[in-house]
């Protein structure tokens, strides 16, 4: 059995969550991409809270005892997926930030260090700069 109060709390909570997410997307405070998992969480929890038999069936299937704990378990699962999603996104953001930092850094280097072959306008005195150190200028195989 699941307590009616728990059910009401779960249904109201899910509806509130769904409204909040839609509103955040409407105000462009949240990108559509990020709303997917949140909307999924809200909808699944709402269905489970409202559809008594399905919740009971899942509870049996996973060997759970209390129906309400299945509900919380599903909520926890989604929160976990959310955090995983953020870790992946953060790693991607960090990679992009690094690339930007490197580009800005390279812009800070004077252009006169460019190889003469690429820039004929350069001062002849600067033409040696493209050379590799010493006599080892043989181009590597395959290049």
């Amino acid at each position, binding site marked *: 059995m699941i307590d009616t109060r728990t059910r009401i709390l779960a249904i109201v909570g899910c509806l509130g969550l769904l409204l909040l997410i839609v509103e955040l997307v409407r105000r462009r405070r949240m990108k559509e991409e990020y709303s997917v998992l949140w909307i999924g969480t809200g909808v699944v929890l709402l269905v489970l809270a409202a559809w008594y038999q399905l919740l009971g069936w899942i509870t049996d299937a996973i060997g759970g005892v209390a129906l309400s704990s299945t509900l919380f378990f599903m909520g926890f699962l989604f929160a976990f997926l959310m955090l995983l999603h953020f870790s992946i996104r953060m790693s991607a953001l*960090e*990679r992009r*930030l*690094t690339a930007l*930092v*490197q580009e*800005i*850094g*390279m812009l*800070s*280097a*004077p252009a006169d*260090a*460019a*190889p003469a*072959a*690429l820039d004929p306008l350069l001062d002849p005195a600067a033409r*040696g*700069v*493209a*050379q*590799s*150190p*010493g006599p*080892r*200028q*043989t*181009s*590597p195989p*395959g*290049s």
Partner: protein
Amino acid sequence: MIAVPAFNEAGRVGAVVRDVRDTLPDADVVVVDDGSADDTAAEARAAGATVITLPINSGYGTALQTAYKFAVRRGYALLGQIDADGQHQASYLMTMLETLDEEGADVVIGSRFLGRDGHYRPSAARKVGIALFSRIASLITRQRITDPTSGFQVMRIDVARFFCSDVYPSDYPDADILILLHRSGFVVREVPVQMRPSTNVSMHGGHKSVYYVYKMFLSILVTMFRGTKPEEAR
């Protein structure tokens, strides 16, 4: 081109730049100033280096990778790297370049342990870590690797180009990258070098050792399970 990654190395980086320029007058010295708060950039510039200033302190690996990207774009054929704290003696760059040439290697690493003269004495914990990952790297690459943490290297531009992709760890390149190089078909050699006593904590010596060991194990493991994608590497 000789790359010198530097973070707050004012008072030392100038001497390193001059040392390299005296040894290899034809080479361009490029100092990657990793968001230093001191006069590292000005000092390097005054000593005759081209300076790349990163707007945010981004770590040793990111600073080095910036140099690799720079070398590839500016069309250099060979690239060396030397630490900015003055531990490495530029004169060894000659030996390393000769080894690169004579043995047909793609990367030559200056090893602090190969000479076995015991001049370099790291802390016990560091020694264990280096020994452990040298052993693992040696086993996997089937060749003797004694100093995978050395920041004193010369390489062909193909290797730098390979490092410009996502394969390169932005925090701290180590034994994992040597294993990746080996698996991707690059030839790695070591030559013995002497170190000057460091006047400063090494740029890449400050990391937490527990995290370091964890990271290296994970990194080597995923490197072993990753494809080498030679078509992208070359």
